[in-house]
């Protein structure tokens, strides 16, 4: 089966490494994806808070476009994943919203039939591909690299059906299949503050610090994320957060970067050079012989 692929805006900007590594992993695992034709921004967070109806209409264009040729959409960005899911739920539950959306789609010759399923890559990798199949294809074992798996909030809450809402384990199962070890990380679904760092910096920095210091305390050598904004927050403000609390220096990667690396993708094709906290010394220490 070929999945529809919805990159979303961030994966073409600050989150480029996520797309590069995820598509590399998909290729190595024979997961076929096709980018949604002429997709548009899903209208997540910023729009949501001021003008929700518009964001549902924007999201529904992507759903309708995908539905023409596909039965499942892969949405890697946590915000997109949530908004696409939320839009489906709200169209089902609220007749007014359905009316607005259907009329809007009608003006551009599209129809939304509620036939498409929105899935996160973690879900697809774990449940459609499977950890055994992944383990069988590992070329560069991660040699017990210690990982704090950070899910953030939006992929497990409130709509996700593929994992637990407070203590998910998909990322652990995937990365352990690649030879990594995961550390205990009770804050794994506690919010990093989202864009709070921009609006109320003190609060944002506190939240970011708790996440970082807990990972470090539990012995993590790297934090893995599933969301461009989580990744950005955790890696970019370590110094500032450290000034308020205690310094940390933990590399923050997308889970897909480690997955692709383990499957044998060359390091410079999966965005490792795009991180701010260098990861190569960690790989060297663990004697991970990446391509």
């Amino acid at each position, binding site marked *: 089966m070929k999945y529809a692929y919805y990159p979303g805006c961030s994966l073409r*900007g600050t989150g480029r490494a996520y797309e590069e590594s995820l598509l590399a992993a998909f290729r190595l695992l024979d997961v076929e994806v096709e980018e949604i034709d002429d997709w*548009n*921004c899903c209208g997540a967070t910023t729009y949501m808070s001021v003008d929700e109806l518009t964001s549902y209409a924007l999201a529904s264009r992507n759903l309708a476009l995908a539905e023409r040729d596909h039965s499942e959409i892969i949405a890697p960005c946590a915000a997109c994943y949530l908004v696409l899911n939320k839009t489906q739920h709200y169209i089902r539950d609220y007749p*007014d919203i359905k009316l607005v959306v259907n009329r809007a789609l009608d003006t*551009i010759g599209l129809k939304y039939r509620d036939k498409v399923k929105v899935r996160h890559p973690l879900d697809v990798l774990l449940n459609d591909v499977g950890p055994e199949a992944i383990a069988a294809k590992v070329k560069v074992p991660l040699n017990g690299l210690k990982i704090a798996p950070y899910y953030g909030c939006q992929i497990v809450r409130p709509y996700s059906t593929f994992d637990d809402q407070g203590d998910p384990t998909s990322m652990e199962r995937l990365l352990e299949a690649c030879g990594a070890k995961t550390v205990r990380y009770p804050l794994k679904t506690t919010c990093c503050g989202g864009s709070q760092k921009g609006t109320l910096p003190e609060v944002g920095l506190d939240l970011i610090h708790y996440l970082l210091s807990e990972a470090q305390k539990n012995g993590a050598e790297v934090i893995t994320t599933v969301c461009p904004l989580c990744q950005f927050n955790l890696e*970019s403000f370590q110094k500032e957060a450290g000034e308020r609390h205690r310094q940390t220096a933990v590399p923050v990667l997308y889970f897909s970067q480690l997955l692709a690396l383990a499957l044998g993708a060359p390091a410079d094709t999966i965005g490792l050079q795009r991180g701010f906290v260098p990861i190569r010394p960690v790989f060297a220490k663990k004697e991970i012989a990446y391509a």
Partner: protein
Amino acid sequence: MELKRTIKFEADRDPEFVRWISHTVGGERIRHCLQCGLCSGKCPLSLYMDYTPRRLMHLSREGFKEEVLGSSSIWLCTACYACMVHCPKSINVTHLLYALKQRAIEEKRYPRRFAIPVMARQFSDMVRGSGRITESWLIVKVFLRTSIWRLFGMSGLGLKLLRTGRMPLKRERVQRRAEIEKLLDSVAATRKELAI
């Protein structure tokens, strides 16, 4: 000595606000709130809030509009859904906070230092014009219209993003841009027609 009234009276309540909150998306069940406080306990931001989510639920359904719309909590909420998934009465607390935020913006009651209208405007202009967001352009536009100092403060970060190729300046665009305009116009028209 300045004396301040600390209790609230029936007369302070705004019945219109009660009607509005219980008819807003997600507000249908607000009457069922048990005041158990699980939402506040699960909220990572409640330590910073003036009214915790539990208190906001109660103040809202009782119609204390001033307190609710003036609360810092609306702006602290990051929509992480921890409250909602733990509520024993399945109340969509997150969505209610969204609704309160929208109402506060409508009534122009946002903290001065927040660039909310500027952000929202730049964001929607960009979506209308290109159908997609090019982060680099959005950031520059927002900063140019707010405070230049913040741009300097962030410039170290901006340079890092540029150096690591994470700030591509190429503008992302939808091919069939007319569709986006039509879509947005239609939403506006239906909203007006149905007054929603």
